[in-house]
């Protein structure tokens, strides 16, 4: 479980996170939603420690993560996997080398054992016969899937996804969403996904946190989101014409 307590952060004199608290439970796909520039990515980067918070606390189980030094954080980071917005695959490495990288760095497995694990992870995300390809030779959807394979290579307890659907067509987005949901259940991970894709919200939203201007405005799940009274949330959720029509017809 990840627990975030009253975290705040200012960047360049602007308060980008204001007293945000949340609990993210294991075995669930937790979503952070909000429009572009609302502070979702900053929030996620604070949770994983890529940005240092000004105040508040971040707990990984019983460990106060934000007070740990680099070496102590390293132990928890070995239990983290992250899917970045642009996939963040290492350009100079092949698909196989990308997925093998954390295993090379942090395990004493033999080459054959590592290769077996790499192939298992790649098959799990439906990538086959692409071990020797470079990231530049992959499509956007394939890159995301390879990034997921790399993220789960070390069997993490925590998975973080920053806008996993960005730049993907609707069908591929659904595939990625399903993959994240299935892997979360399989490995009983605590998964946190940043998104503004409403399809993801309605499919995966077991727990949803809505952020606006760096503040948490609403918390609930996918069945509660359509009935919410939160004006800002409604403006976000029903921003497009189709969603508006659905709401009207529901009434």
């Amino acid at each position, binding site marked *: 479980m990840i627990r975030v307590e009253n975290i705040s952060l200012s960047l360049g004199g602007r308060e980008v996170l204001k007293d945000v608290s949340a609990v993210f439970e294991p075995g669930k796909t937790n979503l952070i939603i909000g429009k572009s520039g609302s502070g979702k990515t900053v929030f996620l*980067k604070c949770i*994983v420690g*890529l940005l240092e918070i000004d105040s508040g606390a971040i707990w990984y189980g019983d460990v106060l993560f934000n007070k740990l030094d*680099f070496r102590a*954080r*390293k*132990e928890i*980071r*070995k239990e*983290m996997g*992250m899917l*970045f*917005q*642009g996939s*963040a*695959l*290492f*350009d100079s490495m092949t698909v196989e080398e990308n997925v093998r*990288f*954390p295993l*090379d*760095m*942090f395990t004493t497995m033999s080459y054959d054992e590592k290769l077996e694990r790499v192939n298992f992870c790649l098959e799990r995300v439906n990538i086959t016969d692409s071990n020797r390809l470079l990231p530049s030779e992959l499509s956007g959807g394939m890159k995301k899937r390879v990034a997921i394979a790399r993220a789960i290579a070390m069997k993490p307890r925590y998975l973080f996804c920053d806008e996993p659907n960005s730049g993907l067509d609707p069908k591929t987005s659904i595939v990625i969403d399903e993959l994240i949901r299935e892997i979360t259940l399989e490995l009983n991970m605590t998964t946190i996904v940043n998104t503004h894709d409403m399809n993801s919200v309605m499919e995966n939203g077991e727990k949803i946190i809505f952020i606006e201007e760096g503040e948490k405005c609403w918390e609930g799940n996918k069945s509660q989101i359509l009935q919410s009274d939160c004006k800002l949330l409604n403006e976000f959720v029903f921003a497009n014409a189709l969603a508006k029509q659905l709401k009207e017809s529901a009434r």
Partner: protein
Amino acid sequence: MTFRFLSGFGAYWMLLGKVFSRPEKPVIYYRQTMKELVSLGLRSIGIVIIISFFMGAVITLQTAYNTENPIYPTYLIGLGARDSIILEFSSTIVALILAGKVGSNIASEIGTMRITEQIDALELMGVNSASYIILPKVVATLIFNPFLTLISIITGIAGGWIVGTTAGVITSSDYIYGIQYAFIPYYITYALIKTLFFAFIITTVSSYHGYIVEGGSLEVGRASTKAVVYSSVFILLVNVILTQLLLS
């Protein structure tokens, strides 16, 4: 302006602190260093040979035209070319050229890794990104740049000999006598010591500018330019200091 320079200077030394911390898995760093030896060292041989050959030729021709006097023996052309090449050209000028080639390459590579979140990915895995990315580059250039300097010295002197004799400004025997006359072996040591300092400056200054990039491709371009400018300025500054320390 002064504050920005000082805070940048402090950040540079702090980054170096991270770079020279204990590597997570030495075998991975060794492999990375081998890759960098090829990328930053072997792939620079071509340009070093071409530039050194022509610079050696020009130095010889200019020395010849400036010493066109019956008082001076012609072998002095060879001596002058040799000392110019060893003392200044093959260490400092080649370092400035490498600051352009290798420095911009390093800054743009690391800058791109930064803006495409590859460095964040490393950090998130618990890898010391500064050490993993920069240390192999520093080690590779410290190992290989002295060889580049020696290649440059040999090619420069050879260029001077070929063009000098072909143009008829000096005979082959005079040139060969000149390059052996009053030779001080310490000059080679001096050139190699300077090369080590310059290699360190090129890789660390360029890596620093790439590592701190924020924004997009435009900023990566700016970082690449800054890397070359700052590396060149520091090379020239350290050149003065080292010359005073080593030759006085």
